[in-house]
C-alpha cells in the first residue's frame, strides 16, 4: 500500500532525530550463532531478510503501522532454537535504540508537550514559570530560539498593512489596478460589485443580476418605466477613410439579401444607427461572424474622410477585427495616433503651468495632477486610475492603417462609455438628467484656454449647431413614450455635468405634462415625421482630441463636493457651471420589438454614449432618477421578449456562438455531475439525447438526407408517414457515416429576408383571415415543387422561430420541437384545453453497463470485461468508445439519429424559453431545420398549419405550440 506524499513527509520529519533502524530481523534467530552484529546486519544469517527488505519501497524501512499484506513483519515458522548471546546482544541493541529515541525530542514538540496532559497549564509557552522547574531551562532556550526565528520572519509579512493604510486612496487604486489586470473593470464596477453578482466573462467583470430580488420589477421597469444597463463592454471599432473605399471593403462582409447593409442610405447619412450581420469576406450564406451595429459620422464640410463606428460584442471582436483588417488591407500597425492633431496629453502640462497663478481651485488641483503626470512620465503607472482598457499593454497597437486604400482602423475598446436605457419613460429620465450646456462667454474663455468648450464657443457655427440640438432635445421632452420616435434616431448634444443638478433624494422621473404651444406642437410633428435634422446628429464625441480633453479635465468628485459645501443654499444647483463641466454625448435611439404583429415597439429605449472617465458622473444622476439597474440576465430577457436572437447565445453558426455552446455544455454537465447519481435526471429514460447542447450539425444533416430520400421515394412520405419514416430513418442511420464524410459543410442559419418572408407566410394558417393579409404581393402557394426548389436553394439551413404555447407549460432551454402526428392534431381539435400526448418512457440500456463497470473495477479486470460485455449487449453496438466516460443518465457521445429517437419526429431545439410576462404564456425561441419544417407544413392540414409539439428535456409530456416566423 502506498502512503500519501504528505503523510510520508510528516513521518520523515518526525523521524529526523531518531536512530536509523531499531528493527532486529527476527528471522536471524533461525541460525543461532552466526549473527555477530545483528543491528548492522553484517552476518550471513541476515542476508536473506535484508535483501528482501531492500526490494520493498524505501518508505517501508521504518515502522509501518498495522498489519502488512505482503507479510513484512511476521515470520511464518517459529525458530527451533535460539543462541542466548546473540539474542541478548540483539535485544540490547534494540533497547539502546529505543532509549535513544525516547530521550531525544522530535522537532515539532514544545517543552510542555513532554508533560502529561493533567500537568499542562494555560499559556505555558508564554510564561515559562508555569512549567515545572526541571523543564524551565530547556523552555527558556526554546523560547529564545523561537523569538529569533520570528524576528527574522517578521520582515517579510509586512504586506498586511493596517486597514487604514490599505484604504488610502493611492494604495487602494494600486490594488484595484492589480485586480483588473486580467479582467477589465467597467467604470461602474465598484458600484455594481456592491450590488450585483459579478462574473468574469469575455475579459470583463460584469454584473449578472442584482443581489436583491427584482425579476418582475425589472420587467415592469422595461415595459412601463426605465431600465438601465452598462453596456460599456461592447467594443467599438472605428474606421476612417474615403466613403467609397470603405463601402467597397465592407460590402464583402455583408449581403443585401439579409437586409440593409453598411451602405443603406438612411444610415449612411449618419442620421440613424443601423444593424447588420457580418460574414467572413465573400462567404455570404455560410460562415457568419455575428451581428453588429454601426453608426456613420455625418458628413461635414471640412472633412473629406468618413468615420464609421462598428459596435460589436467582445467575443465577436476577436473574429471581426482580423476580418476587417484583411478586407481593408490594413496591416501596418501604428503605435502612435495617426491624426496629426495636437493631443491634449502633450498640451496640458504647459497650459497648466500658465494657469497656475490664476485661480485657486485650479491651483489646488494641480499638485496632484502634476505628480501623477510626472510619475507617468517615469513609466510608473502607480496610483493612476486606469481609464479605458487596462489589460492592454501600452505597446499593443490599437491603430492599423493601409497605404493602398488609406483606411485607418482604430480599436476604441473601452474608450467610449455606453449606457442603455430601456423602456417608454427612458427619455423623460434623460430629459430630467441632462441639461444642454450653457454657452461660455468670452471672460471664461481667457481663464481656461485649454478646455475645449470655450474654444468651440468662439465659433459661431458651433453655437448655432448647439442651439439647434438643444431645441430638438427640448422638443423630445414633450414626447411621452420612446416608441413614438422613428427607430434608430441619433442626436448629438453637449450637456452640462449632470452631477451639478443631482437631486437630494432619489426621485422617479415622470413625463412632464405641459400643454404644448401651437408652434411647439407643429415643431414636434415635424420632428416625428422627419426625424432629427441631419446636422443635429453631429457630435464632438466623434473627435478624439475633444474626447481626451474632456476626460483629462474632468472635475474630481472631491473638488465638486468642496464647491457644493460653499454653496449658500445647501442642495441648490451649482452655478455658474465650472468651465470643465461640458461633455459631448450622443443619444442613439434603440428600436424596440419590430418584428411580428404583437407588442410593437416593446422595449424601445435610448443608448447614451459618453467619453471615457465620465461613467460614474452620469451613472449616479441616472440612478437618482428612479431607473432600475439590471445586468446581463435582464438583457437576455429583454431580447427574449423582443423575440430577437441574443448574441452569442442564439448564433450557433457563428464561431463565438459555437464557443459559447461548448462553455454552456461544460457548465451544465458540471452542474449535473455535482448531483448525487440517484438524484440526477435520467435523460436516457426521458428520450432526450442531448440535454445540455443542441447537435445542430447532425440535425441539419439528417434532415438533408431525409428530404433527399423522400424526394426519391416520391410523395409517399406524407400519407403513410409513420411507416416511411422508420424506413427512411433506418437508412439515415446507415448512411450517417457517409453524410459525415460528405464535405457538404456546415449548417447555417437562414437570414435571407425574402425567403424568411415566404416561410412566414407559409406557416400561417391560411384560413378566413388569409385574404385580408396580402392583397398586393401574392404568395406562391405551398406546393411540393415550391418546397423542393426552396430546399435546393437553402440546403442545411436552420430557421429562427418563436413558439407560443397554446396551453399551459413552461418551456426550458434545449427543449425539443417535434412534429405532431395526425392523431395528435385530431385530438387537439377535439379538446383544445387538453394536455398533449405523452412520450412512452425509454429504456436505459447503459445503466446495466455502468453497474457492471463498477463491479468490474472492483475486481480489477477491466480489460476482459469490455469485450465480452459488448458482445452481449442488446442495443446497437454503435458506441465503441471506452466505457469510462459513461455517465448515468446521459447518452454517450456518438448519438443515434436525433430526428427519430422519440415517438415524434424532432425538428429542432429551443435555445431560450421562459414564461413570458409580456405575452402571458410560455414562449420559446429556438431553431428548427428548414427542410424538416417545410416537410411538416406540407403534410399538415391547412387549419393546423404551424402547430408543433414541444417537450422539455426533463419531461415526457408534449405540449402544443404555435409556430411564428417573424420577419
Amino acid at each position, binding site marked *: 500500500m502506498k502512503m500519501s506524499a504528505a503523510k510520508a513527509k510528516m513521518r520523515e520529519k518526525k523521524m529526523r532525530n531518531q536512530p536509523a533502524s531499531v528493527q532486529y530481523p527476527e528471522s536471524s534467530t533461525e541460525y543461532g550463532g552466526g549473527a555477530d552484529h545483528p543491528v548492522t546486519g553484517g552476518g550471513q544469517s541476515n542476508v536473506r531478510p535484508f535483501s528482501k527488505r531492500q526490494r520493498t519501497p524505501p518508505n517501508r524501512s521504518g515502522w509501518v503501522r498495522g498489519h502488512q499484506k505482503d507479510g513484512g513483519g511476521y515470520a511464518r515458522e517459529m525458530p527451533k532454537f535460539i543462541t542466548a548471546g546473540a539474542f541478548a546482544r540483539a535485544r540490547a541493541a534494540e533497547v539502546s535504540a529505543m532509549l535513544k529515541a525516547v530521550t531525544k525530542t522530535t522537532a515539532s514538540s514544545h517543552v510542555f508537550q513532554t508533560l502529561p496532559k493533567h500537568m499542562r497549564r494555560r499559556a505555558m509557552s508564554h510564561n515559562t514559570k508555569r512549567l515545572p522547574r526541571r523543564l524551565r531551562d530547556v523552555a527558556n532556550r526554546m523560547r529564545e530560539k523561537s523569538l529569533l526565528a520570528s524576528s527574522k520572519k517578521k520582515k517579510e509579512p509586512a504586506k498586511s498593512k493596517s486597514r487604514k493604510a490599505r484604504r488610502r486612496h493611492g494604495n487602494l487604486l494600486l490594488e484595484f489596478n492589480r485586480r483588473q489586470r486580467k479582467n477589465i473593470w467597467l467604470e461602474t464596477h465598484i458600484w455594481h460589485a456592491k450590488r450585483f453578482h459579478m462574473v468574469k466573462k469575455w475579459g470583463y467583470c460584469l454584473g449578472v443580476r442584482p443581489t436583491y430580488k427584482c425579476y418582475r420589477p425589472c420587467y415592469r421597469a422595461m*415595459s*412601463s418605466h426605465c431600465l438601465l444597463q452598462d453596456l460599456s463592454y461592447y467594443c467599438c471599432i472605428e474606421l476612417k477613410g474615403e466613403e467609397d473605399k470603405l463601402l467597397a471593403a465592407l460590402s464583402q462582409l455583408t449581403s*443585401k439579401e439579409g437586409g*440593409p*447593409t453598411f*451602405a*443603406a*442610405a*438612411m444610415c449612411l447619412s449618419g442620421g*440613424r444607427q443601423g444593424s447588420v450581420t457580418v460574414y467572413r469576406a465573400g462567404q455570404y450564406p455560410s460562415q457568419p461572424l455575428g451581428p453588429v451595429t454601426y453608426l456613420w459620422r455625418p458628413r461635414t464640410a471640412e472633412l473629406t474622410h468618413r468615420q464609421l463606428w462598428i459596435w460589436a460584442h467582445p467575443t465577436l471582436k476577436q473574429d471581426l477585427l482580423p476580418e476587417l483588417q484583411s478586407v481593408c488591407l490594413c496591416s501596418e500597425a501604428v503605435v502612435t495616433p495617426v491624426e496629426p492633431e495636437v493631443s491634449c496629453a502633450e498640451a496640458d502640462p504647459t497650459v497648466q503651468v500658465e494657469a497656475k497663478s490664476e485661480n485657486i481651485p485650479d491651483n489646488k488641483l494641480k499638485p496632484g495632477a502634476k505628480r501623477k503626470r510626472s510619475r507617468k512620465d517615469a513609466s510608473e503607472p502607480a496610483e493612476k486610475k486606469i481609464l479605458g482598457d487596462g489589460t492592454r499593454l501600452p505597446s499593443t497597437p490599437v491603430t492599423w492603417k493601409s497605404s493602398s486604400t488609406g483606411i485607418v482602423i482604430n480599436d476604441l475598446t473601452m474608450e467610449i462609455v455606453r449606457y442603455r436605457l430601456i423602456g*417608454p419613460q427612458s427619455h423623460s429620465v434623460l430629459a430630467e438628467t441632462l441639461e444642454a450646456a450653457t454657452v461660455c462667454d468670452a471672460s471664461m474663455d481667457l481663464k481656461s484656454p485649454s478646455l475645449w468648450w470655450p474654444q468651440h464657443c468662439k465659433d459661431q457655427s458651433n453655437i448655432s449647431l448647439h442651439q439647434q440640438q438643444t431645441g430638438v432635445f427640448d422638443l423630445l421632452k414633450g414626447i*411621452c*413614450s420612446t*416608441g*413614438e*420616435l*422613428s*427607430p434608430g434616431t441619433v442626436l448629438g448634444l453637449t450637456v452640462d455635468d449632470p452631477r451639478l443638478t443631482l437631486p437630494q433624494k432619489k426621485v422617479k422621473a415622470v*413625463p412632464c*405634462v405641459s400643454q404644448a404651444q401651437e408652434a411647439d406642437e407643429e415643431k414636434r*410633428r415635424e420632428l*416625428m*415625421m*422627419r*426625424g432629427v435634422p441631419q446636422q443635429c446628429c453631429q457630435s464632438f464625441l466623434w473627435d478624439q482630441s475633444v474626447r481626451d480633453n474632456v476626460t483629462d479635465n474632468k472635475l474630481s468628485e472631491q473638488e465638486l463636493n468642496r464647491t457644493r459645501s460653499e454653496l449658500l443654499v445647501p442642495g441648490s444647483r451649482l452655478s455658474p457651471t465650472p468651465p470643465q463641466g461640458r461633455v459631448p454625448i450622443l443619444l442613439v435611439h434603440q428600436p424596440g420589438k*419590430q418584428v*411580428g*404583429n*404583437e*407588442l*410593437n*415597439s416593446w422595449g424601445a429605449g435610448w443608448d447614451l454614449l459618453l467619453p471615457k472617465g465620465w461613467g460614474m458622473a452620469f451613472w449616479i444622476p441616472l440612478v437618482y432618477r428612479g431607473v432600475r439597474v439590471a445586468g446581463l440576465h435582464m438583457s437576455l430577457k429583454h431580447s427574449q421578449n423582443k423575440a430577437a436572437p441574443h448574441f452569442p447565445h442564439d448564433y450557433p453558426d457563428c464561431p463565438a456562438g459555437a464557443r459559447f455552446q461548448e462553455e454552456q455544455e461544460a457548465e451544465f454537465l458540471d452542474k449535473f455531475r455535482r448531483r448525487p447519481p440517484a438524484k440526477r435526471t435520467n435523460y436516457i429514460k426521458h428520450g432526450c439525447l442531448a440535454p445540455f447542447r443542441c447537435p445542430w450539425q447532425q440535425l441539419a444533416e439528417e434532415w438533408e438526407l431525409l428530404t433527399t430520400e423522400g424526394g426519391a421515394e416520391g410523395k409517399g412520405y406524407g400519407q403513410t408517414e409513420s411507416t416511411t419514416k422508420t424506413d427512411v430513418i433506418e437508412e439515415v442511420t446507415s448512411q450517417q457515416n457517409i453524410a459525415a464524410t460528405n464535405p457538404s459543410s456546415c449548417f447555417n442559419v437562414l437570414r435571407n*429576408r425574402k425567403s424568411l*418572408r415566404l416561410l412566414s407566410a407559409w406557416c400561417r394558417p391560411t384560413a378566413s*383571415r388569409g385574404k*385580408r*393579409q*396580402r*392583397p*398586393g*404581393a401574392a404568395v406562391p402557394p405551398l406546393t411540393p415543387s415550391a418546397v423542393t426548389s426552396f430546399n435546393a436553394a437553402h440546403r442545411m439551413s436552420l430557421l429562427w422561430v418563436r413558439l407560443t404555447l397554446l396551453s399551459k407549460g413552461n418551456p426550458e432551454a434545449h427543449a425539443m420541437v417535434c412534429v405532431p402526428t395526425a392523431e395528435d392534431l385530431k385530438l387537439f381539435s377535439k379538446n383544445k384545453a387538453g394536455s398533449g400526448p405523452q412520450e412512452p418512457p425509454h429504456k436505459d440500456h447503459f445503466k446495466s453497463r455502468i453497474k457492471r463497470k463498477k463491479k468490474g473495477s472492483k475486481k480489477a479486470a477491466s480489460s476482459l470485461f469490455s469485450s465480452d460485455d459488448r458482445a452481449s449487449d442488446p442495443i446497437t453496438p454503435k458506441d465503441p468508445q471506452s466505457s469510462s466516460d459513461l455517465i448515468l443518465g446521459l447518452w454517450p457521445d456518438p448519438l443515434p439519429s436525433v430526428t427519430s429517437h422519440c415517438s415524434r419526429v424532432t425538428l429542432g431545439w429551443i435555445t431560450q424559453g421562459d414564461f413570458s410576462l409580456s405575452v402571458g404564456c410560455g414562449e420559446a425561441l429556438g431553431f428548427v431545420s428548414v427542410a424538416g419544417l417545410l416537410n411538416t407544413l406540407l403534410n399538415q392540414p391547412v387549419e393546423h398549419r404551424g402547430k408543433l409539439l414541444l417537450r422539455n428535456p426533463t419531461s415526457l409530456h408534449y405540449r402544443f405550440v404555435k409556430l411564428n416566423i417573424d*420577419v
Partner: protein
Amino acid sequence: MEIYGAPHYFTAGVQAAHRKMTEPRSPGMSSVPQVIPTHTEPSSQAVEMDPVEYTLRKRLPRKLPKRRNDVYVNMKTDFRAQLARCQKLLEGGGHREICVHGLGLAINRAINIALQLQASSQGALQLAANTSTVELIDDLEPEDPDEAGEPMTRTRNNSAIHIKVFYPDPQ
C-alpha cells in the same frame, strides 16, 4: 394589465403589422381614410409610382398622460376583464367618473363597455361620448437592392372615441 399597449388596440383591425406594398394605394389600405403622401424628400416626389418595395412599420400612437380613471380599451385583453376593471374603478375605486377611450377597431368595444356599465348600474350612470381623430405615423423602410431609397414616413388618421361614464350630480 397593459391597457394602453397601443399597437394592440388597432393592429387587430389591419392584421399585418408590416407588409410589402407594391402599390401603396392597394385595396388593403382602403380602411385608411386619407393617405397623406407628405414629408418625403422633395426630390422623390413621384414616390408613389416607385417600384421600390417598402416595409411598413407602424409607430405607436401618441401617448398622453394618463389619470387613474382613464381606461384605454384594446382588442387583446379579454372583454370581461376590461369591464371588470371599469366596474372596480367606479365602485371600489371611489371615482365619480371614468373615461373610456377606444381607437380604431376598439371603438366598438369601448362603446360596448360603456353601455354594459350603464345597464348594470340600473340607470344610475350616465354617458357622454366624444369623438376625435388621432394622427398615426407609419414608417416605410425601403427594400431596394441598391439601397439608395430614403426611409419615408406618412401619416394617416384614425377615429377615436372618449366616453365619459359618470354618476350625475344629485341636483
